[in-house]
């Protein structure tokens, strides 16, 4: 994306693409049951897509994360999960510990720790 207009076009269409679902909810709210098989399917599609994106961002990152070693990303993720399950499934402390570990590793790498 080199042209400066392109991100705005992407944003505008992305906003509309999301708003379509909200507006359809307003229009059809009196006529459609929200617990139908169709919605179970669409929520499966949605979950699978976002899980795929998250896995891709962790394993094959494109931007700034691409300069970090895979072992750091997986290790910090695993530590976050360990804290999550050890401390009553609370997201914030788990995310905090995972990010802190990741920052520490990034700092140590910068300071000259050799890649494993």
């Amino acid at each position, binding site marked *: 994306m080199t042209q400066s207009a392109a*991100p705005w076009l*992407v*944003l505008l*269409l*992305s*906003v509309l*693409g*999301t*708003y*379509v*679902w*909200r*507006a*359809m*909810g*307003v229009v*059809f*709210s009196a006529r459609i049951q*929200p617990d139908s098989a169709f*919605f*179970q*399917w*669409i*929520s*499966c*599609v*949605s*979950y*699978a*897509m*976002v*899980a*795929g*994106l*998250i*896995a*891709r*961002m*962790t394993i*094959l990152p*494109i*931007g700034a*994360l691409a300069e970090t070693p895979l072992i750091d990303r997986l290790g910090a*993720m695993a530590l*976050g*999960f360990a804290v*999550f399950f050890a401390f009553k*499934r609370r*997201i*914030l402390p*788990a*995310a905090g510990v*995972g*990010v*802190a570990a*990741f*920052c*520490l590793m*990034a*700092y140590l790498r910068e300071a000259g720790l050799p890649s494993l």
Partner: protein
Amino acid sequence: MAAEGGDKALVRKAVIGAAGFPSIVLFASMTGFGSLCRASDLSLAIALGATAGIWGLPGQLAMVELQLAGSELIAIVMAVSLANARFFPMALVILPLLRVGLTRKLWLFPMVQMMSLNPWAATLREAGRLSGRERRLYFVTFAAVCVTAALAGTAFGYLATGALPRPLTLGLIFLNPLFFALLFASLEGRSTVLALLLGAVVGPLLHLVSPDWGLMATGLLAGTAAFLLARRRGRP
């Protein structure tokens, strides 16, 4: 109780409810998003516009990441839209509660733009005790606080990324996948868990096949497979 005092108490209740845990989580997760936008060379205005306009982090992430991967416009927009498809059933559930006694139904269209998981869940929880007008007041107040916290988080993440040392910036960007992975770990239900697992396995593979359409294909293939498997297993 006078109507005025009742409204004030209700607004206060919505503000306090939204300013606690929901706002902290939103601020934290949107900090990661703002940071990602900065690292992806998008402007602050685009970052804030995505938070307020898309107002659903999965779609926001898809927009930035697919743009970064150089995907086609149509592929980006379809992925963003599908990633936020949950707003359709969510709107179907809450609209009958919000429209009670509303004479100008057109107000529902701006109102539904403010909907996200937190105000939605809080309003459903309180709806039984409230009239139609009170529900709308509660919902809009709650949602406004959430949007404010999210915009503040986005701006903070964006600006901090320019100012913080590199390791901290990388940590903020890493917050994006970590936060969602943890959020997903707290979800239940056979079809949901299957969809998440299959999606996580298939996603990176299909990205290698096609950076443009890999994400859409992941959703359709893994999602449909999870849906069918869960249905088959669910039957006696």
